[in-house]
């Protein structure tokens, strides 16, 4: 466990709505090593994006981070120190200095992630000026370099363009350039290519990989697309209804998935070269209402290997298999969590 860049421990982010509490993230733990890419995969509503937003405390009311730790290893004055990001207030100067500087983020909707009233240059320069004491002129020079880095042609002219004059792919490149401005140690990418067409998606993914190498940053890559996971991630976390159900490296995920949910997810992808009769495999049933998460293993109502009296009683504990592979399923261990909210016994 030594030398981890970011360690999320038992993170809980709940939304206190008028119709009840949504436990969007309910006891999530995982680590990210420096320079590596961790993929977080799951269906919509499984809490993967909320996990990403929680790291930088970008949760808006009625959501609130109610528990856990997010330990981040940073270098301050040449000395390494580990800080708990959740100790900082969401509006504090401490978290502000980390946002966009040591940990940056890019988003699912490049079309709406830029302020429509300011030029690309203004917004890039702003990202630089809020963290570095430089002149506006040198910030704009740096902005031009960054636009070159994300392979946008005619960077100089682009500085004076407004967001509505750019395509979705171009805007996402601008967002990436902005994220790179502080040379972050970690980039959180929340479904960065979901809103883009397939050709653009490929280009953006290639770009992100080469920039990751150049900048030596770690990435938390959030997506529902297993294809993208295969291309981008080294380690993978599979989430279901606010919990991590399986954690492993990307090879094992595709070669030897353990959790019935992971297996079902993989079976629902069409495979090239496999002749397959009949309709595509789908997962039985619907994702349960977030207000009414099933007792026990949250996946049991849809699970093909449901064991009555076991799976619907208590949440299974996180069971280590070989190497870094862990899974939460009674097929591999009889151990349950301390209580049904997942507090360790």
């Amino acid at each position: 466990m030594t030398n981890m860049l970011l360690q999320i421990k038992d993170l809980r982010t709940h939304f206190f709505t008028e119709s009840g509490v949504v436990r969007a993230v309910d006891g999530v733990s995982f680590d990210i090593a420096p320079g590596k890419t961790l993929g977080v995969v799951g269906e919509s509503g499984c809490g993967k994006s909320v996990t990403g937003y929680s790291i930088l405390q970008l949760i808006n009311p009625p959501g609130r981070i109610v528990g856990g730790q997010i330990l981040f290893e940073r270098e301050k004055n040449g000395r390494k120190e580990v800080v708990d990001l959740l100790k900082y207030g969401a509006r504090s100067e401490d978290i502000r200095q980390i946002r966009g500087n040591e940990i940056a983020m890019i988003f699912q909707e490049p079309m709406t992630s830029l302020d429509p009233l300011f030029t690309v240059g203004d917004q890039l320069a702003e990202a630089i000026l809020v963290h570095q004491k430089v002149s506006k002129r040198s910030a704009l020079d740096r902005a031009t370099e960054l636009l070159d880095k994300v392979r946008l042609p005619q960077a100089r002219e682009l500085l004076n363009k407004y967001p509505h004059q750019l395509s979705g792919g171009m805007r996402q490149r601008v967002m990436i350039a902005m994220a790179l401005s502080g040379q972050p140690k970690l980039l959180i990418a929340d479904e960065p290519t979901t809103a883009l067409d397939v050709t653009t998606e490929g280009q953006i993914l290639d770009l992100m990989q080469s920039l990751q190498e150049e900048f030596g940053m770690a990435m938390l890559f959030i997506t529902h697309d297993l294809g993208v996971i295969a291309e981008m991630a080294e380690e993978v976390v599979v989430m279901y209804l606010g919990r991590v159900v399986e954690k492993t490296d990307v090879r094992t995920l595709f070669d030897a998935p353990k959790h019935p949910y992971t297996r079902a997810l993989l079976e629902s992808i069409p495979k090239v070269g496999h002749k397959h009769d009949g309709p595509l495999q789908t997962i039985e049933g619907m994702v349960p209402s977030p207000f009414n998460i099933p007792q026990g293993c949250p996946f049991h109502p849809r699970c093909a290997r449901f064991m009555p009296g076991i799976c619907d009683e208590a949440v299974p504990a996180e069971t280590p298999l070989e190497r870094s592979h862990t899974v939460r399923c009674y097929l591999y261990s009889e151990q349950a969590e301390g209580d049904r909210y997942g507090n360790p016994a």
Partner: protein
Amino acid sequence: MTRYIVRRLLQFIPSMILIAFVGFVIMELPPGDYVSNYIRAQALAGNQDMVAQEAALRQQFGLDQPFLIRFANWTINLIRGDFGISLATRMPVSEIIGSKLGATVAVSLCVFILSWAIGIALGVYSATHQYSKTDNFLTTISFIGLGLPDFLIALAFLVLAWQLTGQVLTGLQSPEFIGKPFSIPLLLDFLKHLWIPVTAVVVTGMAWVMRVMRGNLLNELGKNYVTALRAKGVPERTVIWKHAFRNALHPLIGALSQTLAFLVNGFVITSVVLDLPTIQVTYLDATQAQDLFLAGTILTLIGFLVLLGTLVSDLLLAWLDPRIRFS
């Protein structure tokens, strides 16, 4: 940009003619005209001699001409800067309007500046502190402001002031100061009267600005770019004032188009209730008396201010929003 402004200004001309024409037609709709009303009133008062002069009077005012000719004559004179005379007072229309304009603009400007400044400030506070005690309190106040008509609030203030001081603060000046040259006591007396209409109209105006500001800012604060700004480490104050606030100004600037006209046409009933020497009361009286040229001129003035207000608000929107500027 200059060409755009010139083109818009040229479009004013046909619009103005149309506004004046429709106004004239509406003035003609009730039976009779100013002269027949006047003669009837004189006859009722026992002045039967006037009846014989009806035709002469009508000829004197030019009311015997066909409608279109009357309209054409008036329009041509208007362009020359001659607004005609008020039939009721026989005074030049320009003189009447001129004498009312000062008081009207004084009250309206106070109302406008205060209700927008207070409304925007409270709206931003409310939105950035959503569901806090202060927000709930301000929201309640704004609904009361929206629900109560301004003339009722004015009446309540009037009664309150009377009960506390024994003074009836109607109008904008005490009788002893009317027509006197400027002095410090005169100014104090003016301010003593001014607060009633201003406060009453500001309560309702501010409530509206506040609701719009709060709603829009909340809408903007929920958008992705705000989260993206926070994620890049922009301080919250900058996120709100430099980014979300400017985006939220859109509908308020749109509403600005009505504001110039409001300056001479707003709070009519309050003006009547408080007996304010404002142009809106003159307009109301002139319409009731079929005082054709006076009413027509004021209507044209209001129409002009609506057009000008729309142009100003369009230009402001273009300045604010590149998406409008480039299309």
